[in-house]
């Protein structure tokens, strides 16, 4: 059985598992059975992907007699598909493992079980599709199934609003993709990817296709200003689905972008790439600023997803800029960095969403200001979340640092580009990315400090219980992945080399031969990084410090209340709140960028009521674009409403005048 057949069979089984899950009626162990089966099938996908990266089964394809009768449905298995199958299979498998534990607490399992495996299967089909129709069909099935999952808790007003906004944006995105594929296929209707590769696209049309892909794939991935659905929809779903959407589905969207722009489209003019870079960098800053302002733990994580998507898009834009100038080595570096960050973000964002799910299970709370002190009640979860938070904050020796370091290495290559615009814009975007990275660290210090350290802010947080072992195992696996990918980045880079080679006809130097697992992306004289050495140093210095403290300090164990700065019995509310922690950054960036407004209402003299402090933070794209768009649509439709009450003769006149206008237009056009 060839690789593509195996993957298709697995995807088909996943799709079939959905309806089968209905048989269990959500009783007893049926949810565990469904999640275990999904996990195993995902493992098959991940293993075939790994084998594909090793060269097994690359280039196999299969035509199924489905869809359009004269075309059939084409599926193929190449290096890019293999890499993303690893992301999907690995992420999906571990999330399914987590769901075995987490799903026990779901009060409406039948709202999740039928859609969950089918969602995984649809994502696999998107990765395997090799013609426009199967791609779009799988893409749309993926969107609809995830929409159903977002509506799991449909009793909540927020979830319904999220579902609505998501559906509108998904429809818009698919429409853009449809147009992009229409342009790609050209007038001859070359809808197979193989035929698209052979079609030449004039420069302006190539840029138009790029723009449509930015709209279509960007809206699914969460590129600003098309991200508005993401912070609503991702947190509204159950936490394992949030992990799947943030960790995996955004990557499938990126796959669509990479497949079209780097594989099918051919060369794109150099001046298009700064747009992608700036969009990515702007998205990163906007996303992380909004994450910084957010009190809801899962929404903050969703905003942080937007940041990471921005970083990845910026890296892809760098790769496009270098490719357009024939700088293959630099393009390979930026592209490798993007792929590496895709894998890393899958790992740590899934881990963090699982952590948020565990916290939600243990306390019933998502509000950071209600948490606190969880490190005492849920030590394992807290430790694993700490690993994820450090990884996403790009601290060495974890994986986030390795990929972001590679991206900055690519940024530093921009002076070699021939165009002055590229030389100017890339360092500016690099500055934005650096700002985003610093803000990300601040954001996760805030989340971890307020949510997990200190004293509990609420009864629920004070009585939290550690979650089950299965969930912890899943989270531990991802935490280990973050650590291993950070210590052995060379191995990961070498594994991704076939993908880079297939897309750009070039690759980074082989990293396996370097001593101490050092990675040297360009030349040793220029830069090198060894996660292993950093890890050894961190481990040694930390152990030495711990040993010294225990050896030379008083060894009597003392337990003192936390934050005990002279107020032993003060209320937990005297601690830093999430809003208070974010205030300095909000005052610096938020007033102009996010329209943050603070109002303090003092009670009149003599009134014993409390003073009120209110804070308004808005997403500039929501207020600036979407609400105005909605207002404009309402205005136009209200005006058009009068068309319903015309006289018969006026209707005839309308028909007549439009005919005349068309005829005159035809005459002028010729």
């Amino acid at each position: 059985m060839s690789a593509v057949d195996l993957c298709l069979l697995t995807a088909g089984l996943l799709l079939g598992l959905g309806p089968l899950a209905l048989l269990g009626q959500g009783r007893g162990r049926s949810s565990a059975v469904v999640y275990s089966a999904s996990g195993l099938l995902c493992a098959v996908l991940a293993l075939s992907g790994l084998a594909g990266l090793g060269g097994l089964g690359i280039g196999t394809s299969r035509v199924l007699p489905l869809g359009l009768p004269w075309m059939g449905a084409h599926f193929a298995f190449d290096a890019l598909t293999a890499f993303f199958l690893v992301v999907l299979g690995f992420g999906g498998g571990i999330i399914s493992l987590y769901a075995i534990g987490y799903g026990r607490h779901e009060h409406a399992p039948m709202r999740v079980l039928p859609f969950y495996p089918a969602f995984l299967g649809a994502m696999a089909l998107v990765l395997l599709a090799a013609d426009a129709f199967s791609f779009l069909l799988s893409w749309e099935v993926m969107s609809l199934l995830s929409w159903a999952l977002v509506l799991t808790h449909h009793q909540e007003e927020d979830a319904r609003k999220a579902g609505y906004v998501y559906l509108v944006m998904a429809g818009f995105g698919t429409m853009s993709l449809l147009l992009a594929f229409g342009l790609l296929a050209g007038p001859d209707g070359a809808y197979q990817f193989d035929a698209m590769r052979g079609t030449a696209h004039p420069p302006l049309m190539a840029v138009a296709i790029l723009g449509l892909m930015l709209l279509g794939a960007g809206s699914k991935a969460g590129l600003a200003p098309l991200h508005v659905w993401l912070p609503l929809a991702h947190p509204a779903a159950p936490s394992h689905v949030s992990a799947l959407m943030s960790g995996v589905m955004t990557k499938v969207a990126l796959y669509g972008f990479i497949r079209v722009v780097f594989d099918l489209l051919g060369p794109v003019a150099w001046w298009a790439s700064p747009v992608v870079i700036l969009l990515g960098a702007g998205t990163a800053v906007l996303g992380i600023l909004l994450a910084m302002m957010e009190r809801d733990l899962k929404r903050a994580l969703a905003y942080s997803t937007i940041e990471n998507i921005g970083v990845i898009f910026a890296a892809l834009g760098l790769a496009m800029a270098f490719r357009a100038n024939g700088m293959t080595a630099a393009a390979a570096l930026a592209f490798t960095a993007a792929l590496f960050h895709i894998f890393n973000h899958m790992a740590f964002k899934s881990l963090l969403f699982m952590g948020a799910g565990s916290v939600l299970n243990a306390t019933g709370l998502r509000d950071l200001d209600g948490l606190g002190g969880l490190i005492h009640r849920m030590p394992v979860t807290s430790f694993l979340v700490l690993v994820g938070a450090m990884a996403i904050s790009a601290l060495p020796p974890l994986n986030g640092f390795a990929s972001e370091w590679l991206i900055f290495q690519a940024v530093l290559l921009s002076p070699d580009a021939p165009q002055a615009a590229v030389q100017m814009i890339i360092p500016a975007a690099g500055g934005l990315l650096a700002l985003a990275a610093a803000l990300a660290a601040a954001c996760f210090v805030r989340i971890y400090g307020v949510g997990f350290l200190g004293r509990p802010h609420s009864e629920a947080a004070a009585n939290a219980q550690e979650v089950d072992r299965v969930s912890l195992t899943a989270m531990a696996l991802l935490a280990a992945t973050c650590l291993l990918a950070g210590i052995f980045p060379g191995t990961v880079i070498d594994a991704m080399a076939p993908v880079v080679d297939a897309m750009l006809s070039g690759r980074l130097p082989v990293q396996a031969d370097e001593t101490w697992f050092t990675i040297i992306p360009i030349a040793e004289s220029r830069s090198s990084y060894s996660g292993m050495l950093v890890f050894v140093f961190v481990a040694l210095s930390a152990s030495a410090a711990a040993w010294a403290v225990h050896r030379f300090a008083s060894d009597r164990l003392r337990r003192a209340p936390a934050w005990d700065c002279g107020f032993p019995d003060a209320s937990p509310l005297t601690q830093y709140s999430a809003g208070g922690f974010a205030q300095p950054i909000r005052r610096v960036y938020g007033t102009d960028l996010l329209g943050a407004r603070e109002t303090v209402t003092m009670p009149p003299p003599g009134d014993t009521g409390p003073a009120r402090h209110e804070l308004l933070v808005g997403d500039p794209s929501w207020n600036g674009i979407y609400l105005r768009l909605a207002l404009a649509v309402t205005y136009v439709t209200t005006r058009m409403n009068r068309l319903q009450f015309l006289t018969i003769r006026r209707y005839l006149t309308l028909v007549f005048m439009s005919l005349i206008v068309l005829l005159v237009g035809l005459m002028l056009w010729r």
Partner: protein
Amino acid sequence: MPGIAFDTAHLLSGGLLLVSFMMIYQDRMFSLLRIFALHAVVLSLSVAWQAYIQGAPHLYVTAAIALIFKAIIIPSALRRIVVQLGIHREVETVVGIGVTMLAGIGLSALSIVLMLDVTQGADPYAREDLAFALSVVLLGLLMMVTRRNAVSQIVGFMSLENGMILAAAGAKGMPLVVEISVAFSVMVAFIVIGVFLFRIRERFDSVDVSVMDQHRGDQR
């Protein structure tokens, strides 16, 4: 196409356009119906001439249908309706006759310029035939738009149909089936609209469509 055949076909098509203009000019109901009958006669002559020079006997059927139904039955039926219902015998126009005529000239110019431009390289008769036919269609629409009275709107609609049949007859090899169906669609439209008129009469005591608007509560 030999000279005399071409010229005659040209003359008849042009005659149809001329009669369309005459219809727009009319402001009395009975003379409008008479002109419509003339319109149908010219159409049937034109189609019959096409049948003769193309050697296409089935077009004679179309010509006969045009002559019998459109030139005789429909005008007399409409005349009966007007008499029986006591419909106001003046055609109420929206804009003045002169303005309508000017608009009609503009439409003819538009359709001739457009058609001669679009059909470059086609058979010269077919080109001009199509240009005339489009003019007749547009004039029919113009008539429907600029008349308030339901009967004159029906007449406008049917002169529009005549323009279509002129175009169909000018194009060689148009199968008979289509012409019959076009003719029957006109018949059906006539019956439906005739019934409709009776209903309007029963319901509102008038066939002036503006009365329907008032009945519906609209402001004009």
